[in-house]
């Protein structure tokens, strides 16, 4: 069988591959441990194989849960668990060994030897015949019969009665047809064929070896009793009849058994095909997803659809469970206990964990490329070995999808970091250039005043001093923007969000800018409606200060700058409106670019770093908002941004 998990396992160092054969026997643990030690000693890959025979479905619940425990142990010891189907256990093991490149096989000696039929080889002999190149290690096992005993579970007698009914009915029909043939005068051979056909049909309908044998025998006896001379007697006159009966019995039995085997294999093949299709679907679904939460919820949906069982997914990143909403039955579990179980499953050193804490879910860790993403738990009551295998495959698919998503996110993060790095380098270069001018002016003017202060007339002195002041003001603004941009480097993670009234924020910014309006009239218009926004208040104040500063810088003296707060449905809209000369069409697309300072005439001829508007955009976008530039009528421009409103409940 194709091993889906292979692509995820690290390669062994030795090229050896140890296989342990799983069974539901309590003593199977010893075999698993021996195999694990061997695998460790050789540095080999370790696989545990369970051959599910058709009878296993009828096995007792104790047997099934013991098998589950054994599988758990094997996975805890680092084995990959595989399940194959077939009634010929030796043949299945040999075929799997060949396909998986098994070099060492560990098996219990007493397994399947007790009910040995004369002439039938035991498992080991068969294995030697089928796979002569594999080293077989036999673990002596003196404990009780470790084959799951085919005890009838409840409802078994009902099934026997049902099968008996079917057999009697079919033989009755066969006998009726034979009477018809006799009346038509057809030869005995035809009647024999009818009985053989009857046995064949019985075998397929009952799926039971016992009923195949019984109805073969019954067919022969009926034929003997009803149709061979002397009729209505078991005595037979013809010399060839005993031979005929024997041949009839043998043919009926063999064809019946063959039909049964064919039926079982077909059902096994059907199951495997079904699972492959499901896994393929899951794979397709999961790998189309780029969203982590979606991967997890899809996995849960898929598992619920497959197993109709309750599913819990523990998300390591959130440190909490994902609870699927559409569980098949109301879930009854203790979240804390399940969390402990999930954590234990994840922390177990093995590929899969099987822990001893109470709780009802069976957990498999979401692990891919040695990274842990969480654990998937399923209410595992009544799941067959095959189901477990499917479950672990789906879990692996999910882990791989999460790993893919993680890698993609890492890459994105790296890209953002690289562009941040680039931004920082650009800022530094730009700053070192732009700092020179105001610093030259400040230090030059101050030195001048210190040396020649008395020689200047008061007018000149005042001019020099106001130059110093405006240059240092420029440096102060720059410093604020630089501080804000270092905070923005972390993107949305650097934001210190609090619920603020938008009016308070705008008020603070307008109040600050009024002091440096330089002859522009700044007004604030608000509806007065109390609207909250969840923002980093400092940064939004900075945005407004930059926008107003910008308006001051690019408008002639006496211009009006209005800051307006509006309710825009789910959003709050804040606009900075000026009636200056506006922005030319060729500059418009670039105003928010880094280091763009425009071709506009700056009113006080002070250069600009081109950082302000870029920062505004970055800050507003980090808050999930939007910033735009529009034209004012008849002239001037409007910078407006929108932020999402926050609903607040008030405590009286």
């Amino acid at each position, binding site marked *: 069988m194709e091993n889906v998990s292979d692509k995820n396992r690290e390669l062994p160092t030795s090229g050896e591959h140890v296989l342990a054969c799983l069974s539901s026997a309590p003593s199977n643990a010893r075999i698993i441990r021996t195999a694990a030690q061997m695998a460790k000693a050789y540095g080999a890959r370790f696989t545990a194989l369970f051959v599910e025979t058709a009878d296993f479905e009828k096995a007792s619940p104790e047997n099934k849960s013991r098998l589950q425990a054994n599988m758990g142990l094997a996975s805890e010891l680092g084995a990959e668990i595989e399940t194959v189907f077939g009634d010929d256990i030796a043949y299945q093991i040999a075929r799997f060994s060949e396909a998986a490149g098994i070099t060492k096989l560990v098996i219990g000696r007493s397994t399947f030897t007790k009910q040995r039929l004369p002439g039938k080889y035991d498992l080991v002999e068969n294995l030697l015949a089928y796979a002569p190149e594999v080293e077989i290690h036999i673990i002596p096992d003196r404990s009780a019969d470790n084959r799951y005993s085919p005890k009838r579970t409840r409802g078994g007698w009902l099934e026997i009665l049902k099968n008996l009914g079917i057999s009697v009915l079919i033989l009755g029909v066969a006998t009726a047809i034979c009477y018809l043939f006799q009346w038509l005068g057809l030869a005995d051979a035809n009647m024999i064929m009818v009985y053989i056909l009857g046995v064949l049909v019985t075998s397929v309908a009952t799926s039971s070896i016992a009923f195949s044998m019984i109805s073969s025998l019954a067919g022969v006896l009926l034929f003997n009793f009803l149709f061979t001379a002397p009729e209505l007697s078991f005595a037979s006159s013809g010399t060839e009849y005993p031979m005929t009966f024997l041949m009839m019995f043998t043919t009926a039995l063999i064809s019946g058994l063959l039909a049964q085997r064919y039926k079982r294999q077909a059902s096994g093949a059907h199951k495997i095909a079904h699972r492959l299709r499901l896994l393929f679907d899951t794979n397709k679904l999961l790998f189309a997803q780029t969203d982590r939460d979606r991967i997890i919820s899809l996995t849960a949906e898929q598992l619920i659809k497959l197993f109709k069982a309750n599913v819990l997914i523990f998300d390591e990143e959130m440190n909490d469970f994902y609870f699927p909403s559409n569980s098949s039955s109301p879930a009854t579990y203790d979240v804390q206990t399940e969390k402990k179980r999930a954590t234990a499953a994840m922390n177990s050193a093995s590929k899969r964990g099987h822990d001893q804490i109470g709780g009802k879910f069976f957990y498999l860790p979401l692990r891919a490329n040695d990274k842990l993403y969480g654990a998937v738990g399923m209410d595992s009551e009544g799941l067959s070995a095959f189901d477990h295998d499917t479950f672990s495959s789906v879990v692996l698919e999910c882990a791989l999808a999460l790993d893919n998503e993680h890698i993609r996110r890492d890459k994105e993060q790296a890209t953002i970091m690289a562009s941040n790095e680039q931004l920082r380098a650009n800022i530094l270069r730009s700053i070192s250039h732009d700092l020179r001018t105001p610093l030259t002016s400040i230090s030059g003017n101050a030195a001048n005043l210190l040396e020649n202060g008395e020689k200047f007339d008061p007018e000149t002195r005042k001019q020099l001093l106001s130059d110093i002041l405006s240059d240092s003001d420029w440096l102060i603004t720059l410093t604020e923007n630089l501080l804000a941009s270092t905070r923005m480097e972390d993107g949305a993670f650097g934001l210190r969000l609090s*619920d603020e009234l938008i009016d308070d924020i705008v008020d603070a910014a307008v109040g600050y800018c009024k002091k440096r309006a330089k002859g522009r009239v700044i007004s604030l218009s608000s509806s007065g409606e109390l609207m909250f926004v969840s923002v980093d208040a400092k940064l939004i104040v900075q945005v407004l200060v930059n926008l107003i500063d910008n308006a001051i810088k690019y408008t002639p003296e006496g211009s009006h700058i209005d800051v307006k707060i509006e309710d825009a449905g789910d959003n709050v809209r804040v606009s900075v409106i000026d009636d200056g000369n506006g922005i030319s069409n060729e500059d418009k697309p670039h105003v928010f670019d880094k280091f763009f300072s425009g071709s506009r005439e700056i009113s006080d001829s002070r250069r600009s770093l081109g950082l302000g508007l870029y920062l505004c955009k970055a800050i507003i976008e980090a808050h999930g908002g939007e910033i735009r530039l529009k034209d004012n009528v008849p002239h001037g421009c409007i910078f407006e941004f929108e932020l999402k409103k926050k609903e*607040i409940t008030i*405590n009286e």
Partner: protein
Amino acid sequence: MNKPLILVVEDDPSVRNLIVTTLKANEYNFVTAESGEEGASQAATHNPDIILLDLGLPDIDGVEVIKQVRGWAITPIIVISARSDDSDKIDALDAGADDYLTKPFSVEELLARIRATQRRLAYMNSASSSSVFENGGLKIDYAAGCVYLDGEELHLTSIEYKLLCLLAQNVGKVLTHKFITANVWGSSWDNDIASLRVFMATLRKKLESADSERQYIQTHIGVGYRMVRL
């Protein structure tokens, strides 16, 4: 008028020089200290009227100095902080500071803060036991539980009244969100702070409806509120 004595605790010589020059030019008396320990001992020896305290001192944290001084005196303390983070200001205010200034600050701003503190001192000395609070056009009659603005009675909800009294009793002082919510609601959850903003906004609206140029309550974004002594 008798100019008050101001203690300047600042380790950076040029900023200290700037402050001292400003104080000298405005005819204030002053003493200086270069470290936290020195500042605390100067405060004890000279018993200044106002303390200007830099938070980033070389020896001990400014907040530590506030706690020491608050051990024996209620001298108004204006902290000066260079950090853009609000949390150190809030810590200082909660430790007992009255006001704060952020570097870089202008000379006018520094003088305005000192004058506001002086007015507060004068008010505290004259009206500490009065049952009526008056500030500009605002009058609170604590005994009657009535508030008047320019002679007209204001109708306030009980929470608005509590807030107004708290601000009035600490006029001139910046009160942190935590301090206000703890005093009005007895708790300080995030939700209380949001509620505080709403009540403060409605209270301000009622106080300023008559005259929009006159602001009784200042909002300090990220820090708290202050009633201005007019």
